[in-house]
């Protein structure tokens, strides 16, 4: 093994382990300094995952076959970059927290999600997600008055875990396997209205954001188990979620809009448009956390997040929509029509208030960074596609 390969493997491994080290550091330092430490740790984590994205941990053997050190393709690596930027934005959006467990939770969940995505066996990945869920719920439920919320969160997600588990013991590629696997994945990700817990507070996003991202990335790897039925069920679940978001109205039910990019992401995974799923995932990672209103930041304008999630240009989810709609008609015209109608209904609710259709620039630092990332992704991902990176 050459020196350069060893260095890339070391960098890739460090990128995976770094959030654990970050969690330890953030938990150990005092409350006053914890936010600054968390920021530096998250920034370095972003740098490491970007490096790991550019230098894949695989090498060509003597016989010409590519040997991967762990389950790694460019989409999965890009997904881990999104995870690390999601962590950075979570740290930026929140004030210093007193509880050591909660302030280190975003780092722990991001680390476990990253490890789950590269696990050799998807069953092992699901097991790591269970550990992540248990850790997060343990941290939440330990606080006074939060046990019921923690229980609801765990119960809904464990239903998904059991369905995925059951499907992985069934014969590969059959209809029942695909159906059960897709239902499990959707419930585990918490896609509205299938897997949403009854009460959600902003701090739950520390756990839910990486968990749903990892589940979507795992869903891409689980396609080989589920076969045709898996894809069909994922598309159906996504269309139902899009339809409910467009019909119920996300102005009155903001949680529906929060999982709107996830719904489109699952449709994209179903039709095997993984790059489009990545673009929707960037909307979920960068903008969904900003939609939570915990009463502290009433003055901030969240219109940028609403527009990013509702697939307005020039954000990455908009480019994802274009990419998705260029692929879906090959699959089925009726499904393409349903998606277009759902999207238009959601977009119409966004333009009804006479504000600018285009970007509204936020005032706070987290919003500015998120907007910049969403715009950068909308240019960089198609460029990377044209250059053959995906």
């Amino acid at each position, binding site marked *: 093994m050459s020196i350069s390969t060893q260095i890339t493997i070391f960098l890739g491994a460090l990128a995976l382990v770094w959030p654990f080290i970050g969690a330890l550091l953030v938990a150990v330092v005092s409350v006053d300094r914890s936010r600054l430490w968390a920021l530096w740790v998250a920034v370095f984590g972003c740098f490491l995952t970007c490096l790991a994205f550019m230098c894949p941990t695989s090498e060509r053997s003597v016989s010409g076959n590519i040997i991967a050190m762990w389950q790694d393709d460019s989409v999965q690596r890009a997904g881990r970059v999104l995870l690390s930027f999601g962590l950075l934005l979570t740290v930026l959006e929140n004030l210093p927290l007193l509880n050591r467990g909660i302030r280190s939770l975003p780092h722990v969940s991001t680390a476990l999600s990253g490890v789950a995505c590269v696990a050799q066996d998807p069953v092992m990945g699901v097991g790591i997600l269970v550990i992540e*869920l248990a850790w997060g*719920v343990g941290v939440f439920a330990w606080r006074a008055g939060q046990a019921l919320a923690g229980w609801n969160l765990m119960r809904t997600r*464990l239903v998904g875990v059991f369905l995925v*588990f059951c499907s992985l013991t069934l014969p590969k590629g059959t209809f029942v396997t695909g159906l059960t696997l897709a239902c499990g994945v959707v419930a585990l990700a918490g896609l509205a209205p299938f897997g949403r817990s009854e009460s959600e507070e902003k701090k739950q996003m520390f756990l839910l954001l990486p968990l749903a991202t990892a589940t979507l990335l795992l869903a891409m790897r689980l396609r080989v188990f589920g076969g045709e039925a898996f894809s069909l069920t994922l598309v159906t679940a996504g269309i139902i979620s899009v339809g409910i978001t467009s019909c119920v109205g996300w102005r009155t039910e903001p949680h529906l809009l929060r999982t709107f990019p996830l719904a489109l992401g699952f449709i994209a995974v179903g039709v095997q448009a993984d790059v489009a799923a990545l673009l929707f995932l960037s909307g979920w990672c960068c903008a969904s956390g900003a939609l939570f209103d915990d009463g502290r930041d009433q003055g901030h304008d969240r219109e940028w997040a609403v527009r990013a999630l509702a697939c307005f240009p020039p954000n990455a989810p908009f480019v994802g929509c274009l990419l998705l709609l260029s692929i879906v008609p090959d699959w089925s015209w009726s499904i393409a029509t349903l998606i277009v109608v759902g999207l238009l209904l959601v977009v119409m609710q966004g333009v009804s208030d006479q504000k600018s259709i285009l970007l509204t620039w936020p005032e706070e630092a987290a919003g500015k960074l998120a907007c910049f990332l969403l715009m950068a992704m909308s240019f960089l991902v198609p460029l990377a596609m044209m250059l053959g990176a995906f």
Partner: protein
Amino acid sequence: MSLVAILVPLLALVAVVRGVWVLPLLGIANAGALLLGGQDRLRESVAVLAVCFTVAPVVFLSRYQSETHYERSRFSVAFLALSFMILLVLARVQMDVQIGVPLAAQVRVIGAGVFLSGVCTLVIGLVAVVGYRGMVWQWLGLQISVQGALFLAVAAQKNVLVGVAVLVGSVVLFQGGLCLHRILPSASALIGGYRESYGWQNGDDENAYYG
């Protein structure tokens, strides 16, 4: 397929209707079915864990007052679970007819009846989790699903699956216990309340009240 393996989903169905005290019977039946399928170190360990996972909730809940929430839908949940069982049996027959080869390969590893029994137990638990509103009943549903998962994992003879099933079982046991501990009032508080309302002193015979 042993008779005990058929008994496991039936006991799961009884547990869904009658409550958490049936759970140890389910665990013992599950352990028996696992040990009758063959005796190696893995099966023995999982059998012990299956009994532990079912006995621990009963011991734990005896320290707390019973949930005030009354489940009216117990029989409808059981009926729904039974319907799912019948659907699963029919789906297996359909799979036999339609795709034969992949199922035959799976059956060689697991054994069709044992496999179906595990899936049924898991699904009965999930129906209880979704159908019930009370936290103790939902916990019961998750415990039943854990028994099904353990059974399936051992029957599939995949160590990764066994590991994940044991992990999920531990998470359900400890996290469920933690959440219930924060919500349910303890039984000692009830006895303390009786003490106050009846003006008992230390040393009085409390059993006389329950008489």
